């Protein structure tokens, strides 16, 4: 899985591309943790995971979202997810993650509403 980062003024947008399965989960976890690490000179005000290019997620992938959200909370950084494709959305809904995480329909909404919930 490829992961792109876009650093905006007040937020860092993380864009995972492809399949977030067991094989990809460990690397993705490291990348997310890096954003909240005390070694990061300027921590972002918000982290948004833009899932517009994410085709697949398993429970191993969900786990990384959960750990990321917890790390964000600890660091005082807003954490949101946006642009879920139907297959990924289904996994988020069935697992109850849509209720635990801030999930927005698109990136503009996620940037505008910050940590709000849908």
């Amino acid at each position, binding site marked *: 899985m490829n992961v792109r980062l876009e650093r905006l003024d007040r937020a860092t947008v993380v864009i995972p591309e492809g399949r977030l*399965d*067991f*094989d990809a989960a460990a690397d993705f976890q490291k990348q997310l943790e890096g954003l909240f690490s005390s070694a990061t000179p300027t921590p972002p005000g918000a982290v948004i995971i833009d899932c517009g290019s994410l085709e*697949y997620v*398993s*429970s*191993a992938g*969900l*786990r990384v979202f*959960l*750990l990321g*959200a*917890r790390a964000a*909370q600890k660091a005082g950084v807003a954490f949101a997810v946006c642009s879920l494709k139907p*297959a990924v959305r*289904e*996994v988020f809904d*069935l*697992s*109850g993650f849509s*209720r*635990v*995480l801030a999930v927005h329909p698109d990136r503009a909404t996620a940037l505008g509403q910050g940590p709000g919930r849908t």
Partner: protein
Amino acid sequence: MMERRTRVPADPKQLAVLNLFLQDFWTAAALAPAAMQPFELALEEIFMNVVMHGSEPGRTPWVEVTLDGGAAGSVTMTVEDDGPQFDPLSLPTPDLSAGLDRRPVGGLGVFLVRQMMDAVSYQRIGTLNQLRMVKTLAG
């Protein structure tokens, strides 16, 4: 009617091999690509369950996956392993209402499989664990 079968060691490296096996079956059976996702997820969750919980010191079990169906509108996926007796359906349902802090990070995989499949059943057959999953494809 089409049936395909493969057997791999319960090693995480084999996940990609199994996923290709599923894709090949799906293409050969001319099934709708969008309908594959529940099987992709179930295969990963059940296989990784055996990888994580089915191994004993010094011994890696094998996992055999059989895919069956197409013509009748439903697909049956059977996963067998020769690891220690373990019924994944005996795992408790995770607490979906727990908040961010208290939510357990594990236990979701089998739950998702049960939600996505029409029927899931476990059988202990001699020295084998067998999990059988059936889903009727839309359309």
